[in-house]
């Protein structure tokens, strides 16, 4: 499983989520994440149907979307979601 973190420099919620993700990534070194800036890759808006930033998309090994979260999410809720989809 891989997580796409879609954000933008002007987005306050993205900035608040950044340190939360940094902590999770430090605690789970095997977790695969990728940050995509909406302004640098605007095509993602249509490709992944993005209507809000930040959006966190959980992608399975078959490259299909399993789940997504939007906005300010508590660290514990993120971890629970990651555990739920781990190994997919």
């Amino acid at each position: 499983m891989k997580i796409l973190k879609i954000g933008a420099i002007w987005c306050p919620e993205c900035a608040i989520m950044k340190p939360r993700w940094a902590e999770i990534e430090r605690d789970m070194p095997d977790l695969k994440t990728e940050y995509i800036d909406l302004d640098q890759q605007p095509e993602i808006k249509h490709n992944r149907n993005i209507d809000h930033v930040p959006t966190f998309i959980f992608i399975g090994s078959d490259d299909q979307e399993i789940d997504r979260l939007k906005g300010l999410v508590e660290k514990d809720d993120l971890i629970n979601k990651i555990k739920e989809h781990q190994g997919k």
Partner: protein
Amino acid sequence: MNLYKKLFLSLALGIYLFVTFLILPAKAQARPEVYFFFSPTCHVCAEEKIFLDQLAGEFPDLIINRFDLTRPVNFGLLREYYQRYEVPADKQGSTPATFIDLGSENGRYFIGYGPSLDSVIKEYILTAGQTDNDGSKPFIPVERKFSLPFIGEVDISGFSPLMLSVAVGVLDGFNACAMVALGFLLAVLVSSGMRRKVFIVGGVFILVSGAVYYLFISAWLNLFLFLGYLQIITTVISIIIILFALFLLKDYISGVVCKICDVPAGKEGFFTRAQRKLFIYMSRLTTIKMSLPLMLLGVALVAIGINTVELFCSFGFPLAYTKILTSYDLSPWSHYFYILVYVIFYMIDDFIIFMIAVATLRITKVSDKYLKAVSLISGIVLLILGILMLFRPDLLVI
């Protein structure tokens, strides 16, 4: 003391005693009189004025004396009436204050005004005070209870300007706009890992935000002090507040928390673009290398910009607060004192988040779940305030 002084003092004392014990009671016995103390900025007073005008038409014998409390001389007179009518200290200081003198030590006072008082005052004058068997000077409190669905009867008597400032300030402080802006700055600063930088830059941002808010509310206040007595202003403001509350509730229902975080299909509006640009400036300012004074200046300017734009996102509570505050009869300085209390309590949650960020170099668990709950509570409270301001403004002021 020379003879002339003695003569002058005796004469003055004589005139005083003559007027006090002979002329005034005689006058009072002749015709019933109403002593009406009002503030020109208080809309409840304006309502009572209309009632008194009608009363004067119905009772041609009735003498109505009106005293504008913005004139210091009338304040002294009001104090005399408080003493004469034995008004308890906790009921003093509110407008309108009405004293009815039927002569022969027969009188009654009314603090505040509401439509329910019309018939009470009329009956009291009609029966020449006979409705009070003991002839005492009872206090009739204006009904300050109202029913809310699910909650029941709410009694808001004794809702002082201080309580109003604290309660509405705290509620306003939990708005998502302010929280998200501070969270953004702190998140960028925390990532630097420098506690001193978080403290100084974050502190400047909070101080400037508070100052901008203070100026904004003071401007509203002056506008309402100037125009607030016009009923149309109260009606328009109440409707704006109700609409604002409905928008907050709509946002809650449709799950919108951070409007600028939405990626709309069409073009963004001016405010959204301005906000985004300001956030980009703030992010750059705090991450590139520059001298601290220059950075602080930049952050202060960006804080002014962000807060000015965000005032449009959170004007509901300050609008309601300033309008209600002008309904109290307060001196100009106490208005500014209460606004300061409001802003301090408005900033209190930001200050807590800031102190936690300084101490732990982490951002607290602010989540959309929490911000959504805030917008629901804010929407409901604002809706109640707006409806009360429109239909029962007397309930909001002592």
